[in-house]
């Protein structure tokens, strides 16, 4: 890259250099223009959301821009489809101090982590009060940490039991009943699988959290105390682990249980192999959607309910029903772990006041209704559940509302992610759980993860 050795070529070389300089300047100008958000006009608020439901979030962003009357513009930005990818990208931007991140859609389990790491702003008291007003208690709990509101619930999510009413005319009320019913079906050569999230990932932790909470226990308290090793949480944990182990080792179990996620459960049900599944409401939307996006009513089934290769005029959807999540203890409703999406305001934002205002708009009634109807995710405003329009769109609303009213929250600690990894590692594969032994190991490993000591598997 030294200057040309031949002096005669000096001039053309210089010309080329000027050209290169001009090109570079143009490129730089284009890059600056690309980054600049203040090129006249109202401030731009970037609203980062998961890829699922991006269309509805973009519509909400547009509606809120219109409602702001020129004071700000909300621009929706899409994050990856999977939660780990979303969290990673947000963390990278926030750690690097990206000022173009204003409003972020965060998973309910990240509140403590993002708050403690200084990535999201605590809601000022007046706005926190408005957020609390009319919002369901469970979802609100997921956005709170150490007595303050850090994220405003946008959508929530909860699992209920989906089952085949031809195979099980009365839905099982407890896990014990369900295991027995499924073994009966298997003995009669009928579809018998219980579909549940048994793969080594967050879904397995959710299953365990639901069971331990339903049995009256807790993994970690909000002030970071590991409870799983002491009574009464210890016996609840043993009970939860033994249910998981029994589901996996039952004669009727799905052989793929140890790698099954939500979508595998939906597919097994639509393919006519499952009798029961605990899953989120998307399975209802899916079975009603024609292929390739959905199951199109599921496969054809014969008189006994087995999947049939030919058109029998009877499909899985004709026998598809739902019921409350099975309990651990008969008579005590299950405390189902809730999921969903909360809205936080980034500490790196240049327009925090406007961002808080926009959050209020993004989660208002109209926008939540759109998310529910078009995206299938349950809203967090209590009033919507008594709205006939919503009820018509959401036939399973009652079971969902019951589930939400008895909700349990995943451990509220900044180290949640590590704790979850440890739990899903120790409980996978579910068939090899030794309930008594695993709880001791869990207590030890969860305590290490809580203190961010050592490795996560």
């Amino acid at each position, binding site marked *: *890259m030294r200057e040309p050795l031949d002096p005669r070529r000096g001039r053309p070389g210089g010309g080329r250099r000027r050209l290169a300089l001009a090109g570079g300047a143009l490129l730089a100008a284009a890059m600056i223009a690309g980054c600049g958000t203040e090129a006249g006009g109202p401030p731009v608020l970037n609203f980062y959301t998961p890829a699922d439901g991006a269309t509805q979030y973009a519509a909400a962003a547009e509606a809120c821009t219109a409602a702001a009357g020129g004071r700000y513009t909300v621009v929706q930005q899409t994050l990856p489809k999977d939660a*780990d990818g979303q969290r*990673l990208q947000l*963390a990278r931007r926030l*750690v690097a101090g990206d000022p173009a991140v204003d409003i972020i859609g965060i998973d309910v389990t990240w509140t403590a*982590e993002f708050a*403690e*790491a*200084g990535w999201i702003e605590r809601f000022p008291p007046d706005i926190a009060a408005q957020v609390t007003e009319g919002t369901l208690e469970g979802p609100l709990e997921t956005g709170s940490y150490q007595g303050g509101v850090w994220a405003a619930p946008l959508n929530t999510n909860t699992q209920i039991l989906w089952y085949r009413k031809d195979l099980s005319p009365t839905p099982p009320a407890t896990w014990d009943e369900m295991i027995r019913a499924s073994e009966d079906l298997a003995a009669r050569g009928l579809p018998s699988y219980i579909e549940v999230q048994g*793969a*080594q*990932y967050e879904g397995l932790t959710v299953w365990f959290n639901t069971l331990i909470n339903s049995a009256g226990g807790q993994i970690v308290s909000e002030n970071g105390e590991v409870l799983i090793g002491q009574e009464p949480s210890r016996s609840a944990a043993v009970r939860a682990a033994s249910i998981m182990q029994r589901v996996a080792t039952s004669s009727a179990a799905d*052989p*793929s249980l*140890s*790698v099954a996620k939500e979508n595998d459960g939906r597919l097994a049900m639509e*393919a006519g*192999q499952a009798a029961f599944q605990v899953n989120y409401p998307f399975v209802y939307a899916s079975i009603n959607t024609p292929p390739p996006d959905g199951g199109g009513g599921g496969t054809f089934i014969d008189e006994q309910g087995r999947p049939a290769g030919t058109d029998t005029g009877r499909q899985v959807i004709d026998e598809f029903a739902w019921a409350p999540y099975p309990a651990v203890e008969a008579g005590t409703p299950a405390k189902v772990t809730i999921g969903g999406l909360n809205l936080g305001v980034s500490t790196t934002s240049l327009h925090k006041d406007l961002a808080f205002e926009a959050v209020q708009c993004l989660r208002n009634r109209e926008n939540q209704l759109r998310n529910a109807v078009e995206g299938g995710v349950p809203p967090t405003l209590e009033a919507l559940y008594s709205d006939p329009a919503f009820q018509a769109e959401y036939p399973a609303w009652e079971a969902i509302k019951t589930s939400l009213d008895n909700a349990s929250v995943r451990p509220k600690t*900044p*180290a949640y*992610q*590590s704790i979850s*990894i440890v739990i899903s590692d120790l409980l*996978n*594969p579910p068939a090899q759980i030794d309930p008594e032994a695993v709880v001791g190991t869990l207590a030890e490993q969860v305590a290490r993860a809580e203190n*961010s*000591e*050592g*490795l*996560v*598997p």
Partner: protein
Amino acid sequence: MSEIVNEPSAKGPGTTATTERVAPPAAAPARGGKPVLSEGKKAERRLGLLLCAPAAIIMLLVTAYPIGYAVWLSLQRYDLRFPADRAFAGFANYAAVLTSAYWWQAFFVTVIITVVSVAIEFVLGLALALVMHRTLVGRGLTRTVVLIPYGIVTVVAAFSWQFAWTPDKGYLAALLPEGSAPLTDQVSALAIIILAEVWKTTPFMALLLMAGLALVPDDLLRAAQVDGAGPWQRLTRIILPMMKPAILVALLFRTLDAFRVFDNIYILTQGSNGTGSVSMLGYDNLFKAFNLGIGSAISVLIFIAVALIALLFIKLFGASAPGSDTGGRR
């Protein structure tokens, strides 16, 4: 870590060219004292260094800095979720990693994947190379066809393996007894990971070995045949020793690559059921737990392991290692 891989490749072609001149069996080049250089030679050497400098500086910038930074991070307690707790921790992170059962579990899984897959690849690759070398018709076509798996993106191939082995959906799972889910068991899942690795990288091995086969002079083989050496003797006594430099490069590349296996596992099992490699462990600690200290310590340990493998290979193969023969230098 790519510089480990890049380095031999930069020297590779030179080695192949020079070994043609130096008779490999008598590979004991004179390593006398430094010869006195003439003025001309000195100037030439200076020019050579100057010409290398830009590349060397860029390499330093893009590799030495990140490596140095990783080492620095690995000496700290630094968790993104607890920014206030950041502190110098000395070798505590290394102690935590090396005393952790997760690390050793991942380490042994990685070693098994590496050893088994490289061994199979070598045998298959050598067979393919011999076939390709001897093919008389459609040589270009054969070589292109053999290379196809290597041209397919690993993640894409991994997804198709995953579907193939998923019960009820996959055509390969359909060949197994009813109710088996091979990706859910440690041994069978590892076998599938190794299969995917072998399928993908055998062509690469074959290609490198074929380049080595070109070094074996035909008249030498004919002379051996006249002396009564059978095919097996010719392979083990003549072809393989003559190919030693090419074998070293092929094995070294593949071992280093296999030790850092990530994408196949990430797609096929996500590391569940005890199938995670050390790279998976590093990824999980860095990008899921946000623990920069521990994660960097794992990365540095992988780096050291990879460096040791390279060193071991060069010691093992001695003089035929790339760059160890002085004959090629001026």
